[in-house]
């Protein structure tokens, strides 16, 4: 009997969910967190810096170019032999993230690599200059023949002229060629401080494993005065509705995109808005009654393809987007009019649609909440949205708590306070 009691005790003592452990006090970072996942095989270490392209005001693409340099430099943290870890980095408009993944025994190497991010870039200038060529090739690879991205970039600049949030993260070939390694290093010196970075460790390691290594590698990282983010500049909510046209050689069929940007509804917290936006985004991308797909694709045969989605960013704005391709015999103006009619009439979704989509989101997350990858993604979303990780339990509760009234409040904000941009993409020869 005692054995059974002990076994039950053992089983109960295993965490039902991976919870977030705050280890900030052992580091010189703004935040350091562990999500212990005994069932995972690899440890993931993500170092998120609160700086992105929106924090620069020179040639576009600098934050991303700097990320390339820092990644190469940091990767040498523990020698040039086989690394036995996977690593990469990314930059977006507001953040830069350096990540490593490998066996638990390599955690020390990964944290040493993270610490190296704050050190001086250790690369020959020639190499740094040729890395700029590599960034040009990345632009070629990802953006040059990508009219969807080019239209998105053009629309942002049309809607938010001269605003930090309308900067292009990768830049253009012209802007990349204006950047020098010295400009990138100067930017790094301004923003790359321990007190401007958050660390997230997920995987089969305990706090007891992690803390000594944190103390060794990340306690004495450089500190500094972090400048105010230029993207905090206020947006003018004047109801403007602008239009921009892109012509591109890779377009065979015209398409369009519409973005409506609005301030987050008053009284709605960041987390409430984030999860309500998730539900709204799923509704917009579903085939349920009230969705753009149901109305414009299935019923009216106006668009031959359509998708809708929504998101929020750290400026306190929410965004609703619809894009579509024209059905045969439908002109661009007819398609745009029909889509705007749909958006103008969108004040709520049928209760059945909300129930189907909401239930699916909750069920899916409830099912996947034990997956290490899901836990990692949810924790990281917390870093992006509020600066500290979400636990799976908290995230699930937040999704489950979303109400139709909250989704309606988002729609009302778009309708009453939105500013919008319509982007039209046409074949190059279609003049």
């Amino acid at each position, binding site marked *: 009997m005692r054995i059974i009691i002990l076994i039950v005790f053992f089983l109960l003592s295993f965490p039902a969910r991976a919870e977030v452990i705050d280890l900030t006090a052992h580091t010189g970072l703004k935040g350091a967190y562990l999500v212990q996942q005994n069932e995972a095989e690899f440890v993931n270490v993500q170092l998120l810096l609160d700086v992105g392209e929106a924090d620069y005001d020179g040639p576009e693409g600098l934050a991303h170019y700097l990320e390339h340099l820092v990644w190469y430099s940091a990767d040498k943290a523990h020698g040039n032999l086989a690394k036995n870890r996977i690593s990469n980095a990314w930059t977006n408009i507001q953040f830069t993230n350096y990540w490593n993944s490998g066996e638990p025994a390599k955690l020390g190497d990964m944290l040493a690599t993270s610490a190296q991010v704050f050190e001086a870039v250790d690369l020959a200038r020639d190499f740094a200059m040729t890395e700029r060529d590599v960034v040009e090739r990345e632009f070629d690879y990802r953006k040059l023949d990508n009219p969807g991205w080019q239209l998105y970039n053009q629309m942002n600049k049309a809607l938010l002229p001269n605003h930090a949030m309308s900067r292009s993260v990768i830049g253009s070939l012209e802007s990349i060629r204006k950047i020098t390694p010295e400009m990138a290093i100067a930017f790094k010196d301004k923003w790359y401080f321990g007190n401007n970075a958050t660390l997230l460790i997920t995987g089969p390691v305990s706090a007891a494993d992690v803390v000594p290594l944190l103390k060794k590698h990340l306690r004495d990282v450089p500190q500094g005065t972090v400048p105010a983010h230029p993207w905090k500049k206020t947006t003018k909510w004047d109801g403007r509705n602008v239009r921009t046209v892109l012509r591109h050689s*890779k377009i065979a069929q015209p398409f369009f995109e519409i973005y409506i940007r609005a301030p987050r509804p008053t009284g709605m917290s960041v987390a409430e808005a984030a999860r309500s936006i998730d539900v709204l985004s799923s509704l917009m991308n579903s085939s349920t009654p009230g969705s753009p797909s149901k109305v414009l694709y299935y019923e009216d045969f106006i668009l031959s393809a359509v998708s809708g989605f929504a998101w929020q960013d750290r400026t306190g704005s929410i965004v609703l987007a619809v894009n579509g391709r024209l059905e045969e015999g439908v002109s661009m103006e007819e398609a745009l009019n029909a889509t705007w009619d749909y958006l103008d009439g969108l004040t709520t979704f049928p209760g059945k649609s909300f129930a189907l989509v909401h239930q699916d989101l909750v069920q899916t997350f409830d099912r996947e909440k034990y997956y290490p990858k899901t836990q990692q993604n949810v924790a990281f979303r917390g870093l992006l949205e509020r600066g500290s990780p979400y636990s799976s339990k908290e995230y699930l509760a937040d999704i489950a708590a979303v109400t139709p009234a909250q989704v309606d409040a988002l729609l009302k904000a778009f309708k009453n306070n939105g500013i919008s941009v319509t982007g039209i993409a046409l074949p190059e020869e279609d003049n």
Partner: protein
Amino acid sequence: LKLISAFLALAFAFSSAAAAQEVTHHTSPDGHEFSFYHMPDADRLAISIAWKGGIANLPQGKENVAALAIDLMLNGGADGQDPADIRAEFEALDAGSHLYTDSDAIRGFLVTPAKDAEKAADIANRVLVKPNLDERWFKRSIRKTKQNVAEKEKHNAIQAWHTIRRLTMQGHPLEQVWSVQPAGNLDAITVEDLRKWHSESFSANDLVISAAGNGSPEEIGLGLDLTLKGLPREHKRSDLPPLEMAYNGKTILIHRPEEEKSFMAIVGPLPEGAHPDKLALQLGTGVLGSSEQSRLFKAVRGELRAAYGFFAQIHPFTRAQDMLALSGEVEASKLRETLAKVEETYNEMKSGGIGFLEYPFAKRIMMKRIRENYKKPSTLAFVMTEAHFEGKTLEEVINLEAKADDMGRGEVNTAIKKHFPEFSQMIKVIVTPDAEAIEADCVITDFRQADQCR
């Protein structure tokens, strides 16, 4: 200590029980035979149905009928029901499905929580047995396909791959299926063709059925009967002729002066997918070109600074024909150096294999992926069906992890040396705005001229 030992013994007993899971064989009430791998800890049930026989019942020039019919079945509604309603009904189940044609079978997958298996099977049955296949949706599907084809061929990589298929596949019907070229062939297809193909191709016989996940054989049997209910007893499916591929080793330059960038693809033959050395070749391909630590990445990006990335992949064309492809976008002014560097890097890999320091981590990554994938019922259902077509035992494919674990560096390197094609045998296709960028055996301006390069 005794208590802890007792607990550990119990824990091991549980894990041994899990490891002892094996494939069982069952017959549904309507007589459909299926294999089942029980995964009590899984949260899904996956059912794979393969309709044996390919699409050789289609007339020449109409090889795209099968893909169009499947697109319409999945997206055009069924049993008179509105397409949006069917999709919304299915989306609400937290389920997934897949339907596509292979060279020797039509393949269908249903992945669903076991509790929703009956509802998912009911929807699948309507789609399989009574698709609407109406004229209006057919025209929409044709239009979208043509637009996609027209848009894709504007891109360098697609130009290269259309050329590679034209040269290697030697006019096999699958070239039309995959390249959809000539796109004008689509104009000859009617909705009647789709209806005829549907009625002749889906049947309740000649099936290979595999299931994996957390359901019971009884639930699966009932779900299967519901899915297949009402399908004809006979079919007119037949396998396509075997695909024989040819690699002439030529360097082909596609000159596109209006382009701003260049693309390079180098392709050669590998043994059939069922070859005992397949896993070793996958590992070798990964080390050669699948990450930022790969040989090609380090050589072309790290040393030459000529590309953002350069990759190696295995493309399974048919069960008997795998292709090794090395490819990437390359700075036009460095094409010549890049080709030489890729050749040098590749030959080092072929002759020397995976290094002593590289091997443990590369294998670790592969083992991790196998373990992760094998936790998914959909993977198990898929590999069990593949085992049938590849002539392997179910136990062989279920125990892939053990096989991978037994694989040593010497064995892997022997396989790489033996099976990686000679670089001189591989076809090199370069798409570039600079006609003089590289010395080529054949210069063309569009994939449609590829026959000149045989």
